[in-house]
């Protein structure tokens, strides 16, 4: 007997399943805009994603590496997963580190929950209402612990491979991240549960983008500010995704000025 879905009203299950079905189709556009320039080793063009990290941790991505790491600390919006952006939004998470790691991914068969859509966010809130630990999540000082696990349980209950969401953290000047960008929280699976460790959803991860600017979380950490802002404006974004794709294909680097 399993109660994983039993705690969800049947009609809500149908609505969430419908949302997943629709979102999976809507993701195609993002995938098409993020395709690599030439066929990979498997002979087909794969979409690319990018993850930024501090330079200290990026040097290992110049050669063979064990792939992107699954984030599991409490601060991540949709729980445990690999947090990336499609290459369509190439600088959107540069506020988290100067080194952009580009990797291929294969979204065929993914079940996607599009939390950019307010109706879907409402579905998640409706699902929350029936969870046994919701009161503890809302009424105690330990909210973040319970909410983190509830997001994970939701994704496990509906076997959601990828949550799409708009940025919930933006650089103070708005030069790198825009509210309309798409961020992705991607799941790896260990049986019925979300896996941790290194992701198998992303392959051929390679250091490809080096950003001159560096950001620090402000106090309180409601924004992130750049240290330099040398040019007095944001980096030129026109054609950047294409140049990064080319650099990835050529095994070179794309440098982004401050």
């Amino acid at each position, binding site marked *: *007997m*399993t*109660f*994983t879905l*039993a*705690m*969800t*009203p*049947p*009609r809500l299950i149908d609505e969430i399943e419908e949302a997943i079905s629709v979102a999976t189709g809507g993701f195609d556009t993002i995938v098409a805009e993020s395709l690599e320039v030439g066929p990979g080793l498997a002979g087909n063009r794969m979409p690319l994603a990018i993850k930024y*990290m*501090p330079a*200290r*941790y990026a040097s290992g991505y110049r050669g063979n590496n064990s792939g992107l*790491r699954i*984030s*599991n*600390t409490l601060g991540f919006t949709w729980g445990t997963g690999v947090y990336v952006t499609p290459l369509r939004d190439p600088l959107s998470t540069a506020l988290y580190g100067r080194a952009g790691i580009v990797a291929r991914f294969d979204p065929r068969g993914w079940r996607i929950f599009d939390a950019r859509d307010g109706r879907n966010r409402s579905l998640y809130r409706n699902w929350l209402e*029936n*969870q*046994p*630990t919701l009161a*503890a999540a809302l009424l*105690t000082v*330990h909210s973040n*612990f*319970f909410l983190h*696990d509830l997001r994970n*349980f939701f994704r496990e209950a509906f076997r959601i491979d990828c949550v799409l969401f708009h940025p919930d953290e933006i650089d103070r000047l708005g030069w790198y991240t825009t509210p309309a960008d798409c961020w992705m929280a991607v799941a790896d699976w260990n*049986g019925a*549960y979300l896996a*941790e*460790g290194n992701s198998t959803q992303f392959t051929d991860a390679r250091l490809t983008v080096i950003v001159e600017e560096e950001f620090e979380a402000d106090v309180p950490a409601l924004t992130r500010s750049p240290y330099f802002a040398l040019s007095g404006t944001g980096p030129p974004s026109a054609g950047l995704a294409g140049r990064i794709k080319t650099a990835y294909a050529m095994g070179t680097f794309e440098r982004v000025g401050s």
Partner: protein
Amino acid sequence: MSAFRLAAPLIDLAIDDELYALDLDQSIEDDEALRSRLVIDDVPSTEFPYLRPSAWLWYSFWRQRHGGPLPFSLLDYLEKAATSEPYRYRLRLLVLRDRSIQSLDAVDRRDRPSDAERWLRRHINRAVEGPLDPFELQRHLLQIASVASIDALQVLLTTAGQHVATLRTEFLQWFDAIGVDPAQLGSWVEQLSRPPDDDRR
């Protein structure tokens, strides 16, 4: 020198910073002996002072993720330190998702209980007889919603003595509010109210 005395500062940093967690992962990939001491071996009680109980709980999940067995010497220590609900909840999650419990069916778990199963039985008893709260345990078991947690719920609902009727009422009200089909709900209650040993008949 103690492996945990050496690793404790990095474990403390890794709890809140995934990049330090990467360093911790790397440390056991580079050193097989260290991996054995941190991931495979049980944790001697002499090591307990090197970390706070909440850090030991984080470490136990980390160790589980790296394929290690539950550190049984730690579980009772962690339970005694569990003075907050999220702490108790995560301790239960740790045990109920452990592969030593998941890999067996309910009958096997009762006939050949693993260390985790025996700890879980003691834990349920402490909810039935005190000092743990059986209603909180029921909520956590429902939230975790694994096969093992529902089996544990069955044990709770059939051994909770003076609390049995109230626990069942709360269970019924919970699912009734969700709108579960009454026939389905009746079947669950009937199953969960049957003493676990009856499942073998």
